[in-house]
């Protein structure tokens, strides 16, 4: 097992460097460079443009720039973003990455949860009209043209009903007199959500030891206590309305992403369940006379979860890919939008920085998926 992991890590690092090289060459091969976007600006003379090019190091050959970038990157310095000058790339990433991760992690968890529940029922009640209707609607949503669907959602929920803001991260009117900046509030929000879910997780695993009658009320009480604690903290802290504003902006993108993505999980769970239901231990459970719900939830669904968990881990790796479209439509200032904007103006350090971020995320996810697979299914062992 350890040898397998070490080998995988080694291979992944090699792949990662290949990926970086490929992307650097590709981005650099675009016609023109960053200084050319000032071509139409009469205040910048050709000499000044040449100076700008020289100061950004754009006059040197590609290989030299790439090697220098690589040397610095290994030391943890990803360079300075041209379009956010003079902010370092790492600074921009640290600001924007949490927004993307929070948005997509929440949406992914939601869609996997909904999809898993739906898929479980779908496999159990096979062949009815409900199955066909759910599958067709689900696949319709799954393959929907996302820009169009996102705009429909904005039109319906934000424009017509006025329930949610139309886009962006915060509402400037609310924040005009704010004592702190949005990142401060957002980091506090992440921290409280993290703390709350950790406590809940610990409490759930602890409550397993209780006897079955007490388990459900104990979990409910734990959940309520954590909820009251978090809400109470935000009310007392005095910046609760700003946190509420950010949350309000989060709802519509999350709703859209959940609707679009749940069908994938639903169909995966369904297939996995159908394969599990053929196993002998399901027959044994039926023969014991267990109620249907117990067989479905405790015997079949638990075992059918394996591919779903793997798919979930891999889905986390692709936040940036979905991010480009979703963040553009909802004007959510996360990594996807940053990457797109940087790619358009040839802000090479920023593009590569964003891709380093994705690459690390993707590789970690792949590795975790592999290890998790072996861990969850004892039949699979790596030799």
């Amino acid at each position, binding site marked *: 097992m350890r040898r397998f992991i070490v080998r995988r890590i080694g291979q992944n690092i090699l*792949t990662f460097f290949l990926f970086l090289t490929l992307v650097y060459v590709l981005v650099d091969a675009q016609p023109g460079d960053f200084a050319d976007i000032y071509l139409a600006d009469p205040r910048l003379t050709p000499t000044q443009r040449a100076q700008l090019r020289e100061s950004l190091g754009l006059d040197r050959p590609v290989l030299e720039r790439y090697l220098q970038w690589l040397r610095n990157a290994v030391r943890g310095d990803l360079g300075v973003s041209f379009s956010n000058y003079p902010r370092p790339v790492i600074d921009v990433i640290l600001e924007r990455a949490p927004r993307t991760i929070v948005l997509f992690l929440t949406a992914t968890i939601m869609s996997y949860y909904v999809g898993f529940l739906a898929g479980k029922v779908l496999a159990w009640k096979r062949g009815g009209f409900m199955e066909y209707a759910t599958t*067709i609607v689900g696949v319709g949503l799954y393959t929907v*043209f996302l*820009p169009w669907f996102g705009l429909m959602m904005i039109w319906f929920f934000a424009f017509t009903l006025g329930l949610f803001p139309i886009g962006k991260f915060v509402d400037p009117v609310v924040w005009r007199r704010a004592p702190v900046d949005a990142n401060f509030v957002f980091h506090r929000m992440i921290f409280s959500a993290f703390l709350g879910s950790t406590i809940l997780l610990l409490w759930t695993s602890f409550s397993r030891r209780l006897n079955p009658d007490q388990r459900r009320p104990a979990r409910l009480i734990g959940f309520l206590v954590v909820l009251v604690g978090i809400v109470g903290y935000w009310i007392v802290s005095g910046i609760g309305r700003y946190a509420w504003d950010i949350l309000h902006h989060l709802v519509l993108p999350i709703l859209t992403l959940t609707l679009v993505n749940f069908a994938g999980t639903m169909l995966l769970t369904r297939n996995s369940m159908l394969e599990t239901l053929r196993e002998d231990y399901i027959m044994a459970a039926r023969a014991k006379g267990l109620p249907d719900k117990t067989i479905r939830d405790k015997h079949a669904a638990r075992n059918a979860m394996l591919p779903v968990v793997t798919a979930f881990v891999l889905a986390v790796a692709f936040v*940036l890919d979905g991010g480009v479209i979703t963040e553009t439509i909802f004007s959510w200032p996360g990594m996807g939008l940053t990457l797109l904007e940087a790619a*358009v103006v040839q802000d090479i350090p920023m593009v590569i920085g964003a891709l380093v971020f994705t690459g690390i995320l993707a590789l970690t996810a*792949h590795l975790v998926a592999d290890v998790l697979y072996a861990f969850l299914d004892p039949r699979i062992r790596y030799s």
Partner: protein
Amino acid sequence: MAEIAKPSPQPPAPDFIIPEPGSHVPVIETPLWKIRLRLFLRSARTNFQLFAENPIGLFGLGIILFFALMALIHPYLMDNVWDRNIYDPVIGIDQSIPYHPAPPSADHWLGTDPLGRDVLSQLMFGTRAAFVLGILAAIVTVTIATTVGALSAYYGGIVDTIFMRLADLIIMTPTVTILIVMAALFNVGFVHLAIIIGLLGGFGGATIIIKSQALTIKVRAYIEAARVAGGGDVHIILRHIIPNLLPLSFLYMMFTVTTAIALEAVLSFFGLLNIRMSWGLMIYTTQRAGYLLDMSKWWLVFPAGLAITMLCAAFYLVGRAMDEVVNPRLRKR
């Protein structure tokens, strides 16, 4: 001259064995290709019966046929029914209507777009574009994925390592982002896009899945038997491994079509492709004209948006239904 045209004096070699009297060699009187054809037809019929058991697959197939019909009758309509100056999807304009976009009418069933072009004609033209793109991309993907998957499973070792690391590399790449960068960089047209999507798919995720299937085929007894009978590597790969991979490859073709159509629509929507007309471009035109969120002009966005969604969903549903044919563990019985 007549001597050259004369058939060779030797009779053609018999395509079956003539047994010696008294021997027990079985006589096969029909030629081999006929047997192969009959077997193929029989398995195709059984598979279609399995496929038809699932109403979802038939529903998808129905939608695909509907769109295929739309794509096919468009050239006919252009030549015989519609006036080319008015109904051409790219350069037509109806000058009898003072204001464009005009709502649906008897002349224009789905109205006209901001530039005065007929939306229905654009939609039908876009259907053909979507089919060509999707199927071209799918063929490229499946050809590469099947070949590479079979080769790397069969030979293993360095071939396997190279192709699998390449697949890892491609899986890691955010496809939409890279395509946006490439579309901004090169003059990406229709065929280029299909080939790029096909290459990304073929060397990426599809290869890994097809290779893992090929690995399970490689260890079967009939491969061993073929080798013992003196079959070379090329023969085994072409005759035994690839035919057994084809159902799975065909399945991946369906999913690739979905991906390709969706990607084209996204790139056109951002206005990055150099193509004449497509569904994504219809939405892009609407967006540029500022009618995107104007629901009173629904005919500008809805037909194209629905068409993209429906055709993608149809191919996906057919793929799902075929999954049940290919994978017996999912069947009802």
